[in-house]
């Protein structure tokens, strides 16, 4: 049965049109043509500008209000295609693959001047990107220098919203069971050693080919650094001496369009077909899911690429500046993001856009979760004040389509709001636990008196997340921001000269320790210590309650040469060097064994906090603390041990072994007296970072018996992990 709304009512320069549908916003393929719908509260003039793909000059500019010809009769007729504050029009007979489009808008008042404050920034000379564009052209191949003077550099495209999912759906792995791998799509396969050829390197499809590697490593979730369309040439700098880009926006924390995958991350980008780019990403998601791996997107809703009063008008500010951005009463941009502007997330229009975008990614791309960059901004009101009950965060927490998605906050912003432990959670939100990171780092480098803080970290940070549970805590030692793991144990200070900001950028306080020499060295004792410290860090991360996250490259111990803020470098230090998998195979092996250990032991993955109690009367509480003497922790030193009773795994619902972990960050070896196991149980050694490979870690299930069951020696700066199992098993 065909609808009766496919006949044109008006005609304009040969294009047949009819009143459109306001929902959904953006461009959608409808029977017979394409429907366009865009909001602006303050524009009184709006024109739809349609281009042939890639063309500099438009095919046609159709006003949403004015004189048209009546369809079929060609009599002049007035037309206005608007409902409320939404301009909407269906253009019939358009080939959605062959076009790009944008809008011109104006309010009839004098134009705002560049660099000056303004409430409105309409400029009808600019063709504006659709905020709801499902695909964006203009940066179709990564690093291909654009036409800097192009009047319409970021071009909205139409995507046909269908895909052959072959039964795929989001995996819904319980949060407590995840091991997250934070990664960068381009960095993952751009290095020549990735084995991916030329134009495909650094793309979604290249990443798909490398899924077997991720599976072998053992992670069950990837978190992609921003993949929404951004401009790698934003603030770029060309190095004439070396004929290369000395600086680019490599990380991509600067969104141009919230509904569009970055075309330059698709090997199909060069085909200039938005649907193809979408297909490529969807097929990556499908293949990840087939391999039991979830996908979380790092999403940047705190600001856009339009910058401050001096920035370019790409979309939002030319459509409704005071709706999309937080403005001072004079019309300056508030800058809680540290990048020039702040998206006005708790304005109802913007809030709806954010919700619409996430629903779109969850439903159309089967995305399993989202990590929100500088999420504390999302809790600010339109004047920047933090709110007790921010409508956007509440809406996301209760959204039906996002109902099973992981929601993870970076619970701070660049305006001084720090909400680790206090982010408005509604029982749904997890947080990047910056305090976990700081505690592990200080304990790791041998700071005294950190054992109490360490016990909090190991428990899943109950002091921060009481009432929310350990799954509120995304645990990490390293992430894209700051030192990576190799540099954490190789540098006391940042070395960011390559970022061309005179080493002023990046954090100064890294809680790092170089193990006796700043940077590269041949000294075997320093190298051995660094290797051990890296294993210690990975061990602490993976035996802690909460949700561990590992940074891409850390599993190889890849260095970034002491640079702790590599956002602008499309260069080797940001590309995963696959040769290190072989060169650092002992460390890589250790990391994958530790991941396997965590996944083999449900007692490490509790949904609820331990109670330090033994309600079922096994003779052992769920967790107990120890020192060099069993049952006697020393809360003032540099060493601590703990034991988990497997009978309490997942609240006592699944059986598990006893696990004992001795963390000795003292430089001297310490003998640890072991708690006695029940009769018929024996301690076995799963890992000892004081040993050389392959004695540093074993396959879960094949751990050798501990020779002396009453105690174990933990070498200086070493971690020993034991499992206690019945000999009858």
């Amino acid at each position, binding site marked *: 049965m065909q609808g009766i709304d496919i006949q044109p009512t008006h005609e304009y320069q040969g294009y047949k049109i009819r009143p459109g549908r306001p929902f959904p916003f953006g461009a959608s393929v409808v029977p017979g043509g394409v429907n366009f719908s865009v909001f602006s509260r303050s524009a009184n003039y709006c024109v739809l500008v349609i281009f042939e793909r890639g063309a500099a000059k438009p095919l046609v500019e159709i006003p949403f209000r004015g004189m048209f010809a009546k369809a079929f009769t060609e009599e002049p007729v007035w037309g206005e295609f608007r409902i409320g504050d939404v301009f909407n029009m269906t253009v019939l007979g358009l*080939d*959605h*693959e*062959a076009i790009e489009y944008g809008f011109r808008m104006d309010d009839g008042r004098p134009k705002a001047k560049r660099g000056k404050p303004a409430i409105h920034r309409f400029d009808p000379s600019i063709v504006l990107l659709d905020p709801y564009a499902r695909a964006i052209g203009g940066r179709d191949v990564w690093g291909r220098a654009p036409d800097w003077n192009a009047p319409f550099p970021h071009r909205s495209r139409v995507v*046909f919203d*269908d895909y*052959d999912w*072959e039964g795929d759906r989001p995996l819904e792995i319980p949060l407590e069971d995840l091991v997250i791998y934070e990664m960068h799509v381009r960095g993952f396969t751009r290095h020549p050693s990735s084995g991916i050829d030329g134009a*495909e390197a650094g*793309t979604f*499809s290249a990443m*798909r080919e490398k899924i077997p590697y991720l599976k072998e490593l053992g992670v069950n979730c990837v978190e992609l650094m921003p993949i929404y369309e951004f401009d790698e040439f934003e603030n770029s700098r060309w190095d004439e001496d070396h004929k290369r880009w000395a600086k680019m926006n490599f990380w991509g924390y600067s969104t141009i369009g919230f509904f569009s995958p970055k075309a330059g991350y*698709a*090997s*199909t980008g060069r*085909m200039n*077909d938005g*649907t*193809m780019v979408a*297909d*490529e990403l*969807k*097929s*990556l998601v*499908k*293949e990840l899911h087939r391999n039991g791996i979830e996908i979380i997107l790092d999403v940047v809703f705190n600001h856009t690429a339009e910058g401050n009063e001096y920035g370019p008008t790409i979309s939002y500010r030319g459509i409704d500046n005071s709706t999309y951005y937080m403005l001072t009463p004079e019309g300056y941009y508030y800058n809680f993001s540290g990048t020039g502007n702040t998206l006005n997330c708790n304005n109802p229009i913007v809030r709806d856009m954010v919700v619409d975008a996430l629903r779109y990614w969850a439903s159309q791309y089967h995305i399993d979760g989202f990590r929100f960059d500088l999420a504390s901004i999302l809790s600010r009101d339109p004047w920047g004040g933090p709110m007790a009950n921010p409508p956007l965060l509440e809406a996301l927490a209760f959204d039906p389509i996002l109902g099973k998605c992981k929601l993870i906050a970076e619970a701070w912003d660049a305006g001084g709001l720090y909400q680790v432990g206090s982010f408005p959670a509604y029982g749904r939100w997890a947080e990047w636990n910056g305090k976990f990171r700081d505690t592990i780092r200080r304990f790791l480098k041998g700071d005294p008196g950190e054992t109490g803080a360490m016990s909090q970290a190991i428990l899943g940070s109950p002091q921060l997340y009481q009432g929310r549970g350990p799954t509120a805590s995304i645990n990490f030692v390293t992430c894209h921001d700051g030192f990576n793991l190799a540099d954490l144990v190789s540098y006391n200070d940042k070395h960011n000269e390559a970022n061309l900001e005179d080493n002023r950028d990046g954090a100064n306080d890294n809680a790092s320790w170089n193990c006796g020499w700043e940077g590269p060295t041949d000294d075997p004792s320093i190298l051995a210590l660094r290797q051990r410290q890296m294993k210690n860090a990975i061990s602490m991360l993976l035996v802690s309650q909460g949700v561990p996250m590992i940074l891409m490259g850390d599993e190889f111990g890849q260095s970034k040469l002491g640079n702790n803020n590599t956002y602008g470098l499309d260069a080797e230090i940001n590309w995963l060097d696959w040769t290190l998998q072989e060169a650092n195979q002992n460390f890589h092996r250790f990391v994958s064994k530790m991941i396997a250990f965590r996944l083999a032991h449900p007692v490490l993955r509790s949904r609820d906090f331990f109670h330090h109690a033994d309600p079922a009367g096994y003779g052992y509480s769920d967790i107990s603390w120890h020192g060099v003497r069993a049952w006697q922790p020393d809360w003032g030193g540099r060493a601590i041990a703990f034991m988990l009773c497997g009978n309490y795994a997942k609240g006592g619902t699944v059986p598990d072994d006893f696990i004992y972990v001795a963390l000795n960050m003292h430089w001297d070896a310490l003998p640890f007296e072991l708690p006695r196991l029940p009769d018929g149980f024996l301690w076995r050694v799963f890992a000892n970072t004081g040993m050389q490979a392959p004695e540093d870690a074993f396959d879960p299930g094949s751990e050798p018996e501990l020779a002396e069951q009453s105690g174990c020696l933990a070498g200086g700066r070493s971690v020993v992990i034991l499992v206690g199992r019945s000999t009858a098993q």
Partner: protein
Amino acid sequence: MGFDISVTQGSDEATVKLSGELDAAAAPKLKETVEKVAGAKPKRLVFDVSALEFMASAGLRVLIFAKQKMGAGVSLYVIGSKGPVLNTLTMSGFHHSVILQDTYKPLE
């Protein structure tokens, strides 16, 4: 550049030979052909794309439509893909869902 289709009905298989550019304008014509071919219930559906020069996302969708239309019992062969057409198939991941061959050799 136009688009052409020729169909050969064998005893077990139907071969659909495509040439030219399979874009959004050409896709409906192919879809119509696929519907007709499906009616004859072949055991194998073979797309010979050796003379196809370009395939857009709309064209890819007709191949997926064909796969869905024929059902699980019918295997879909894509023969002689190269250059941009092969890229489209592999980069979109569709090559996992069909049998890609240089020349047609039925697998069973």
